[in-house]
């Protein structure tokens, strides 16, 4: 689904991504770990076709995005659900209308798009906020709405920057569960996090981990667990609820 070959990116003359080669298959979660400034967000922007690298190739569904003309990019982007760390929403539109937008870009029928958007909101536990203005939501709720927007309609590639940020453990668990649901549907999920609790939970859920340091992959770091998409089965092997302690908090260090 996704293949990065020797991707290099510079920002202000500084090397942010250094000849990265990464692959993410359909039906797996790829978790990029790393400290602040390691280049995780830049890598995700490249993966989500939001940023053009200075060198290398970015293959998404057998298309080299770096070789595409600008006019062709929308047709790639509409197949990528992308949740930024600081998401932007259309102002004075409801959360539901915002979550429906990627499905509108794909030209899905409106009724189906609405149904899929409501389902995505339900997966992250904010279906009750569908009629709200995103501008009036808390940071955590906005993050959840952005993740719901990225997951709506289960695009083939889902990219989420820092999925556990600004979220309670229960919400982070719901997000992880929704990511696993997308994987079960056959999507490839690429996310980045510096949050140890989320990394541990995702790792327990079978995510393949890669560690990024100063724009380079750290050899041998992280567990390399491939997570095949098994249709009809829970890809985690365990329900997400099992990861929560009796108070609903995410268990750490497992």
């Amino acid at each position, binding site marked *: 689904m996704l293949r990065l070959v020797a991707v290099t*990116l*510079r*920002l*202000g*003359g500084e090397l942010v991504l250094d000849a990265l080669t990464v692959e993410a298959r*359909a039906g797996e979660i790829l978790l990029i770990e790393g400290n602040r400034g390691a280049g995780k967000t830049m890598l995700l*922007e490249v993966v989500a076709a*939001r*940023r*053009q*690298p*200075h060198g290398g190739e970015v293959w998404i*569904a057998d*298309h080299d995005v770096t070789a595409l003309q*600008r*006019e062709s*990019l*929308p*047709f*790639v*982007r*509409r*197949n*990528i659900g*992308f949740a*930024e760390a*600081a998401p*932007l*929403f*259309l*102002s*004075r*539109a409801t959360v539901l*209308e915002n979550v429906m*937008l*990627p499905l*509108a*870009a*794909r*030209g*899905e*029928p*409106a009724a189906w798009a609405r149904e899929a958007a409501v389902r995505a909101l339900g997966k992250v536990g904010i279906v009750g906020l569908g009629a709200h203005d995103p501008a009036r939501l808390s940071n955590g709720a906005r993050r959840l709405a952005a993740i719901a*927007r990225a997951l709506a*309609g*289960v*695009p*083939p590639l889902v990219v989420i920057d820092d999925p556990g940020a600004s979220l309670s453990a229960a919400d982070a668990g719901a997000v992880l569960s929704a990511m696993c649901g997308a994987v079960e*549907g*056959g*999507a490839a999920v690429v996310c980045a996090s510096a949050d140890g609790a989320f990394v541990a939970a995702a790792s327990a859920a079978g995510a393949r981990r890669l560690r990024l340091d100063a724009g380079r992959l750290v050899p041998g770091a992280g567990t390399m667990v491939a997570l095949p998409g098994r*249709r009809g089965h829970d890809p985690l092997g365990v329900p997400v609820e099992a990861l929560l302690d009796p108070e609903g908090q995410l268990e750490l260090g497992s």
Partner: protein
Amino acid sequence: MRPQPAVGAAPLSERFRWGARLTVQGLRRHRGAFWLSAAAFAWATVALAACLALAHAPGAGGTASGSAQLVAFLNDDLPPADRDALAVVLRKLPGVAGVRLLPSDEALGRMRAELGPRAALLDGVEDGFLPTTLEIALRPGPQGTGRADELAWRLRRMAGISDVDVLRNEADHRLVTEQETTRHLRVALMAVSALLALAGLWLVAALARRRRGDASILEGLGFTAWAVSGPAFIAGAAAGAGGASVVLVGLRLAARLVSVPSLASLAAAGGRGLGGGLGQAGTCAVATLIGGAIAWWGTRLPQAARGGDQLAPEA
């Protein structure tokens, strides 16, 4: 269901449905900006109407006759042959209707005749008391006064001529001065009106730029340029058409219903001016296109600093 990449364009019917839906949503979400844009368009149209009405307004009444006469005083020592030659040369100048040589004694006789009973005052005056002169009549024309001054300036520099007087019609001179003042005032008012029209369009552009944030979000989600800018174009075109139509209809009504003749004629002139060669429907169509084009431009501006399409790698 395994997700399938949708690499091509969405079905046309769905694209139209979503286009209409997003247009309505955009109008609802940006209704304040829409009404403000329509008002700015109306304002710009009024200012343009005023500018055109001034441009087509008749000037200050009356036309200057442009008649003027020059009297060139010749040097006493100029030989008679040279005087005749000078008269011949002056007759050939453009704008000169005629040249008459007035000898010294004839000039003195004329003065005596003008003095009438007091002609005795000139008794004992020797011949050559008055200089020989050339009376130069200019052809009437709108620039008569200005041309006389110019010709006098040139004649003063010619050998054999000691001085030149310009005799002009006083009423002509006043009329020309009034017309000049009116023209300057009109140009100033036209410039102010044009600036006000531009200010209205600038406001429309400033409002259109506010859509850039929406555009960058939609582009990030995979909307094509047409899908992003189309609804904005329709909204901008509607604002342009609405604002211009209100003004055109208002001017027509004012021309018919307003009882103050000067205001009514100004409204009629404004309406005619706006119509111009295009007709008022054409004017409305132009406003529609301008509104749509500005709104389109607003969504195609360079990307926002963040959240936008960071497509080009930074150097």
